[in-house]
């Protein structure tokens, strides 16, 4: 078998994944902290104030990376949910469910920071603009997935039911992304683009990209940490989990 495929199969085994994640976590946290320090230095000190928005535009450096992560986490959750439903891989169920609270956290930050940015620039905390509304629906979808997962007793059935809901909710992602084009009301259109040139000065752009990198790395750190706990609980009867516990006092066994 192809070594990469072989490694993927090995990674699907809970004890192997538990050790693998444990080894990577400190590095992911360290990279996150370093990238965040560099990014925030650029965001607060080197980037010049915007000629129209003044210093309020600095909210962008927390708002935009979190908005990207809210969508990215949803895609990651749905992709793992798809694998969990089709191939019934336990690790995929775990990864899908672990990404839901992280994605919800990012979406929540996006909404709150957006509100804090909207007040000084638009003159309102909230409006039923298409982008804002679809982003709120995204947060409710995360809540739905998390709620459904906790409402069903059997952990694996719960994960599959919630994964199904996550897949249905994917229809909201293009709506969030294209809402600023389809219904051009208050929220501005995107200035940073993967394809084609970005409409933003390089001195303002690089801290944003560094912070986007930091939040991506953080997302994987949080998902790995949460998956480790979920696997411990899911496999609590197995030998590999017992081996992790402090030696039992077997005086009276």
């Amino acid at each position: 078998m192809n070594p990469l495929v072989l490694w993927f199969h090995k990674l699907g085994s809970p004890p192997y994944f538990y050790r693998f994640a444990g080894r990577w976590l400190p590095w992911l946290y360290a990279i996150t902290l370093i990238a965040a320090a560099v990014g925030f230095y650029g965001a607060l000190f080197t980037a010049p104030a915007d000629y129209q928005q003044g210093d309020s535009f600095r909210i962008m450096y927390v708002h935009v990376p979190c908005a990207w992560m809210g969508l990215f986490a949803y895609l990651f959750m749905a992709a793992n949910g798809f694998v969990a439903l089709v191939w019934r891989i336990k690790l995929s169920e775990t990864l899908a469910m672990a990404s839901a609270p992280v994605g919800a956290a990012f979406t929540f930050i996006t909404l709150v920071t957006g509100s804090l940015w909207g007040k000084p620039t638009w003159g309102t905390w909230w409006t039923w603009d298409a982008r804002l509304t679809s982003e709120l629906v995204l947060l409710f979808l995360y809540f739905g997935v998390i709620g459904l997962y906790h409402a069903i007793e059997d952990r694996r059935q719960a994960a599959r039911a919630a994964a199904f809901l996550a897949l249905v909710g994917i229809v909201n992602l293009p709506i969030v992304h294209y809402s600023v084009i389809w219904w051009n009301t208050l929220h501005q259109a995107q200035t940073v683009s993967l394809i084609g040139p970005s409409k933003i000065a390089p001195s303002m752009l690089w801290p944003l990209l560094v912070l986007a990198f930091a939040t991506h790395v953080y997302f994987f750190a949080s998902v790995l940490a949460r998956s480790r706990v979920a696997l411990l609980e899911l496999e609590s009867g197995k030998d590999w989990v017992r081996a992790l516990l402090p030696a039992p006092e077997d005086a009276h066994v």
Partner: protein
Amino acid sequence: MSDFFAMHGYAFYVWSAYAVFAVVLIADALAPVFARRRALRDITARLRRAASRKTS
């Protein structure tokens, strides 16, 4: 320096946004740490109960 903290009048909005970002993500990072500790404690307790049932 006070100029920096004042953000030319946008201090409340900018610093609140950064604070929300920091607080929510720090809480998110700590959650699995506590959950892991609780899970290990629960599993240990369950095994101990099972072991004592067997002997009695």
